[in-house]
């Protein structure tokens, strides 16, 4: 699965969890750019992403992502 496909699938997860159909994710997208992506939804997003991609992040990774690109890198590294 390439990065663009990962980001596409992440977008669908974000739309479902945050309940906002207008969300578009890019490599540079941060929590400040997405209305509704806060510390509450972050945990829900992590759980949904882990379930969807069938993987398990460690705490350091979860608290270390600066943007969607870094999250996608983490996923790509696990499912490669």
């Amino acid at each position: 699965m390439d990065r663009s496909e990962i980001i596409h699938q992440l977008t669908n997860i974000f739309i479902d969890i945050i309940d906002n159909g207008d969300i578009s994710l890019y490599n540079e997208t941060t929590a400040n750019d997405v209305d509704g992506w806060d510390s509450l939804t972050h945990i829900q997003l992590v759980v949904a992403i882990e379930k969807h991609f069938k993987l398990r992040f460690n705490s350091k990774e979860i608290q270390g992502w600066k943007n969607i690109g870094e999250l996608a890198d983490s996923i790509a590294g696990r499912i490669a």
Partner: protein
Amino acid sequence: MIFTSIVFALFFLIVAILYYSLPCKHRWILLLVSSIFFYMYSIPAYILVASFIILITFYAAIKIEKAKVSEKAMQFYIAAITANVGILVFCKYSNFFSSSVFDSINFARQKLFHNTEIWNNTLLIKVVAPLGISYITFQAIGYLIEIKRGNHYAEKNLGHFSTFLLFFPKIIAGPVERAHHFLPQLQQIKKFDFDKIIIGLQQILWGLFKKLVIADRLSIYVSAVLGNAENHSAISLIAAVIFYVFQMYADFSGYTDMALGFAKILGFDLMQNFNRPLLSKSVTEFWRKWHISLSTWFADYFYTPLAIAKRDWGNWSIVYAFFTTFIVLGFWHGANWTFLIFGTLQGLILTIEFFTRKIRKNIRKKVPMFLNNMAGITFTIGYFALSLIFFRANSVSDALIIIKKIFTSRESGIYIENPSIMLFCIFGILFLSIVECKKEYFNHLFTFSNNKYWLIRNGYYCLLLMIILIAGVFDGGEFIYFQF
């Protein structure tokens, strides 16, 4: 030495003149010396506690960074965190724990042995918490966590690090700064920037206005009514409770504006602490906009790790993290059941709002935005006011008396001993509300404070100054949050 005193004004004037007279690379020394002087001004001996925290944190951070084996780094990390938390707990809660032990012993003696002689707990030494101990330890703990996570380098200059923790504009009640935001500013060359100084002075003036004209005026009414709740009607109590929300906001955000203004004059940008919280449409939104530096600190270092650790519980991990965080946050305010109830009430409403997000969103789509906003703001202020009854009361029974009277009292009329006090209270709340609404909804239309015309801009600040001189309460005492 409080910000509204003449002594502080003189102190700051001398520091600012000396600061810009010194070469840039030596200015931090003046900041450190003046911060130590400021810290020692009330109880000099407490500098020893602050110094201990600084030394432990400074050297532990370097050891954590240098440690090649993660177990070794972990040992230094745990030791430094334990030392910081231990000092905070001892300073803030030793009186509570020791008096609780005495109360329990007395209770047991009475019940088990029918001994009515009361042991006097005045035998115990009362610990007076050092100035700003919470803020120093929070910043130190945050710094250690970031070093441990590898997000920040360990500062190698003890003087710079000490200045970070002791910087006098923020030491008493924050903002809770982050090392990665503050330390680089110490290295920057700060030229005398007239525009920045004017912005700083404007912030100080607005902070003074909020504190002296709004908060301390409201305080007169609030104290008169809530301090004697049994003798007041439900309407008076409701008015006082609502006034207390505005008093608390004007007091704390007024202090923060002044802290940011003083720092700005010295060329430093501190974190924003408030973002018009009283216009929040939900309590969840409120906590994103109220005491931001502390709530983000708790979100980053407490709530998120808790929720992540228990994420297999699904949504219950968030509920667990909410309650634990807000109970700890409540207990941080003071060792009293009232603060625990205050924290629990926040955890409760955040949980309810979390589980009803989608339902509320669907309802919002069907109702005009204006009504939505009004209902949301009214509910948020009302709920916060209710929880503040516990926050302000000396005991749970005192708080319950107020709540019971609000809901059951049939007495009519509102307490107005002096009509001018009531008028000033209403004027203050209206003025603050208009300024906040204007910034929130109509900021692009017109501005007095940043108007391009010199006369309008400075006329506005002259008006604020005149109102402060005419209507300010100059013996209103300390800021509410200094005690925490």
